[in-house]
């Protein structure tokens, strides 16, 4: 299909797996550890981060021809910070319970290297629509990692997915126990390491 071959679509699809920001570019790992204890928080975090990256790339790209070179980082930061604060306000107004669970991590999206990284390396040199798609793709690639890690951690650490019990009571009665380690941050680290290994092995073939 012509659409799937267009450079604009490729800007979106490449960061999903082939150039995944976490696994291949090694960006944004810190928050991946903290918000992946439950699937629900991981999904909200991924959506917040994707919107911030997409819209900040779009905004920076639209302004790329007028931003003075020597203040470009300050301008990028202002745009990103404003979008993050906006996202935080919307969460507090419409998804209060989840915003309490995410607490400081929404604010920390500002520090997520992926957002600033894409602004600096892609948005400054590419047209707005392509930059928007690139931001969307990187956010989605990051989101895929968050959701995968969270699914593993919630399933093994609490026997649930999205808060719904998946492991039947019969298994617990038989002697099965939740892996408490999965609820702590080092577990996320190990899972990400194993997934990087898996991806690189599959990509070699």
């Amino acid at each position, binding site marked *: 299909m012509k659409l799937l071959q267009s450079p604009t679509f490729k800007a979106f699809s490449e960061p999903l797996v082939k150039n995944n920001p976490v696994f291949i570019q090694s960006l944004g790992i810190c928050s991946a550890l903290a918000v992946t204890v439950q699937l629900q928080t991981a999904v909200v975090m991924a959506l917040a981060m994707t919107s911030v990256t997409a819209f900040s790339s779009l905004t920076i790209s639209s302004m790329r021809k007028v931003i*003075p070179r020597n203040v470009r980082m300050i301008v990028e930061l202002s745009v990103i910070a404003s979008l993050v604060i906006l996202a935080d306000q919307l969460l507090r107004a419409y998804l209060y319970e989840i915003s309490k669970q995410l607490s400081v991590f929404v604010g920390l999206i500002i520090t997520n290297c992926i957002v600033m990284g894409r602004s600096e390396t892609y948005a400054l040199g590419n047209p707005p629509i392509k930059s928007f798609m690139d931001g969307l793709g990187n956010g989605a690639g990051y989101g895929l990692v968050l959701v995968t890690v969270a699914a593993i951690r919630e399933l093994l650490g609490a026997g649930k997915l999205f808060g719904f019990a998946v492991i039947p009571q019969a298994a617990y009665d038989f002697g099965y126990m939740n892996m408490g380690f999965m609820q702590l941050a080092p577990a996320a680290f190990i899972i990400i390491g194993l997934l990087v290994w898996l991806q690189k092995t599959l990509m070699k073939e």
Partner: protein
Amino acid sequence: MSDQLKSILFTAAVALVCSLLLTAAASGLKARKLRNVAVDRQKNILKAVGLIDPDQTVSASQIEQRYAENIRCYTLAGTGRIVDGDTSDGLPVCFYIKDGGAAAYILPVDSRGLWGKIHGYMAIEKDGKTVAGFSVYSHNETPGLGGEIEKPWFQKNFVGKKIVDEKGDFVSVGIVKGKVTDVIAKAQQPNYVDGISGASLTGKFLTGGLKKVLMEYEPLSEQFRKGAVDLPAGG
């Protein structure tokens, strides 16, 4: 125009646009945010008296309705009287109203914790002696260790415990290190709950915090023990 001036003006323009956008968003969303915080507080008070099951999901309007039907909040003045008014010179206290009278009273607990403050509510039955419930809604303790104070299993242990000893003197309710049945004499067991393994410091700080709060509200608890509680009319 010099390059430097251009940079400064551009950055100032960006800052202005960003501030306008954020101010608009913040004020536009303010009403919703305030309602969320108020509903959250009401939910925690309802949880402390067991009017909401911790595993249930209740909608905001249901919380507001249940709260309006069952809870009345007043101020405990320095004189020991319960007055209907603002809490600037007195202590805030809420009552669970059932059959025209107070079935329990709910106190805000603000205790020191290991890594920050612990905030919650403790409900005492109208006998002024028995704990009706305990809920924690904010803390900074370590997840899996001190963080267990937010779990239902820990909070349920407080139900039925006593804040007075067999003679009727105030002793508060404390968290031991280990299991109550192993370390406390039978006569004092109603004044303690089991500790959380790996969280003895959290337990120690929370014990101190609870004692301090309950001590502040002793004048009210004594009124309940005597059965002489005067609630403002109406409400």
